[in-house]
């Protein structure tokens, strides 16, 4: 019997629905659960207090990323609180039979970098993790979302979550990106257009020629920042690029099972004619490299534009704009290019993959970091670091005056020693420019692509990377 065309979200939701709950929510089975050292300790404590076991230990995987230092990772860590958190996760994993990718495994890294590179992240699956950037995994056509610690306990105990089905907004990015314009610029433009709360209640389906032409790593960058637009999950439909990426990955299906998997992955994609709650179109050909200037990721401009004027904004937004200008020490109507920076950070689950480091190295090669700038390159995983080393990227970065670090979240959220100091202004390839986000209560962040960060590091000021490439 033919069924009505469905979106990927609806197919995955229906396949994973255990039952409808009396509250009207769905009890949704979670196929892959990823955990890290910061949001899981209390969840294991909740389990212990309730006398519960982990229901599907083979469907949870753990790593260290948030708090682990990136200079030396020798144990015990110098920071006793950080050490305690690692020990806590090690013990919980051992007690419950959960596989942990620690630095000794050679597979440690940011949870949203290692899931894809190990082949754990697969199309048509549901994925949850106690981290809002879990939306990253949607790049494979998975339905993936961030959860809080009580929900981490729910998944450990039941492999399920109680959730309301989101509506789906299809976002078509048309045209072709110009040179020097990256996936980061696409998602910043989407958030600028739809706002930081425009996605609340929605899953974002990214589509159109620009998304179709992207590599998986580029789609990971786009999906990663769905949550910055308010959408708890965002995805791209699986295609040949997805299957090629997964073929041969350690924890992806192998041999004949891989071919059977591909057939199912293909069927998970949204059907032609599927209906959407909303549709939005964005012209990718018109985009320039983007830079945020304010205190949330919706406040960005093209590097060749001037900052907004308060008078041009709707009256309901003027107070927010004024607050952002005051905090950032920037002036309405001025250009952002030429603004002096103090720190440059290349890394994070948004832009800490090998293709990001290659683009940054292309800019950094043969250059020299400006004298006042502290510049940091933090690979997203040990595997990314090894690949970069094979390609000679650390030498390029070091020769230019960048520090080359070990894998972790680092200065994206500054839970480890990598922090801004005072009112330092940081050109950052990460995902959040919130007040105090990078570890100093008065520190300031300008989000941009890794190539743009490298350009800013060399010139010592916000620079259009297209002038260097």
């Amino acid at each position, binding site marked *: 019997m033919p069924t009505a065309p469905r979106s990927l979200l609806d197919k995955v939701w229906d396949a994973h629905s*255990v039952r409808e709950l009396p509250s009207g929510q769905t*009890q949704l089975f979670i196929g892959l659960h990823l955990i890290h050292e910061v949001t899981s300790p209390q969840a294991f404590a909740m389990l212990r207090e309730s006398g519960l076991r982990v229901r599907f230990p083979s469907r949870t995987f753990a790593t260290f990323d948030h708090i682990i230092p990136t200079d030396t990772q020798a144990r015990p860590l110098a920071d006793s609180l950080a050490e305690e958190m690692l020990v*806590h996760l090690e013990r919980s994993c051992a007690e419950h039979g959960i596989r942990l990718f620690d630095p000794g495994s050679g597979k440690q890294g940011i949870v949203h970098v290692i899931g894809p590179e190990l082949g754990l992240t697969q199309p048509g699956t549901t994925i949850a993790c106690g*981290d809002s950037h879990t939306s990253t995994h949607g790049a494979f056509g998975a339905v993936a979302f961030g959860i809080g610690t009580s929900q981490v306990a729910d998944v450990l105990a039941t492999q399920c979550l109680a959730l309301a089905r989101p509506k789906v907004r299809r976002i078509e990015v048309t045209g072709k990106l110009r040179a020097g314009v990256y996936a980061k610029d696409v998602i910043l433009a989407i958030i600028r257009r739809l706002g930081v709360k425009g996605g*609340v209640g929605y899953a974002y389906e990214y589509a159109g020629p620009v998304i179709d032409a992207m590599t998986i790593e580029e789609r990971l960058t786009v999906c990663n920042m769905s949550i910055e637009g*308010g959408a708890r999950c965002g995805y791209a439909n699986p295609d040949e690029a997805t299957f090629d990426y997964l073929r041969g990955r350690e924890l992806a299906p192998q041999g004949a099972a891989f071919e059977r998997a591909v057939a199912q992955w293909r069927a998970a994609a949204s059907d032609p004619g599927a209906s959407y709650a909303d549709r939005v179109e964005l012209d990718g050909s018109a985009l320039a490299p983007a830079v945020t200037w304010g205190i949330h990721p919706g406040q960005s401009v093209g590097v060749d534009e001037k900052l907004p004027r308060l008078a041009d904004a709707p009256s309901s937004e003027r107070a*927010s704009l004024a607050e952002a200008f005051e905090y950032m020490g920037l002036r309405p109507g001025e250009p952002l290019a030429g603004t002096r920076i103090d720190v440059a950070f290349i890394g994070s689950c948004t832009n800490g993959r090998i293709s990001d480091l290659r683009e940054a190295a292309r800019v950094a090669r043969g250059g020299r970091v400006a004298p006042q700038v502290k510049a940091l390159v933090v690979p997203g995983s040990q595997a990314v670091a090894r690949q970069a080393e094979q390609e000679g990227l650390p030498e390029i970065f070091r020769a230019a005056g960048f520090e080359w670090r070990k894998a972790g979240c680092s200065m994206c959220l*500054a839970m480890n020693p990598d922090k801004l100091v005072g009112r330092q202004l940081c050109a950052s390839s990460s995902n959040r420019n919130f007040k*105090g986000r990078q570890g100093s209560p008065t520190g300031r962040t300008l989000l941009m692509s890794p190539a743009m960060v490298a350009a800013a590091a060399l010139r010592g000021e916000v620079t259009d990377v297209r002038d260097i490439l």
Partner: protein
Amino acid sequence: MAKEKLERVEGRAAVLRGDDIDTDRIIPARFLRCVTFDGLGQHAFEDDRAQAKGNHPFDDARFAGASILLVGQNFGSGSSREHAPQALMRHGFRAFIGGSFAEIFAGNCTALGLPCATLAPADLAAVMDSVDLDPRQPVVLDLRARTVTSRVGTVACQLAEGARQQLLEGTWNATVVLLEAGPAIEATAARLPYVNGYP
């Protein structure tokens, strides 16, 4: 463990103005360096309070003892850290009334039995102004009637229906409810090819 049914929250309110207040501001990341949520209450909005030099609503004696927090648009955006609602709950808040809430924050609140109710912009502005003028007035959030009552009068509010039902029925400890599905969980897993190695 079964939870209490929550039909209403009544108490004094505090006014926290501003939109897009993210969870990094509610509880800065350095306070996530812990293996329990104990003690987080005193660090709520620590950096915002330091920069406001005593002028932050959390340092305003008029709002001391408030159990309802009035907030703007998109409150709780950003990080999924449950430490944010945990810190506010341990600071003494039992409910949030605002313009809108970020989704993960609202879900975390429900898991702690803290309702997040939204008001139309004009109603929110009126309630905020009224509480600012008379912080000692009682404010009542009625989940069953979906109303907020203050000196402004009784105005309609909205709550996510699933969360509202969970709070009204005392089923907001999701673990207990999810466990009730019993073998249906394993039956669902058995239907999913990827859980079984793509046979």
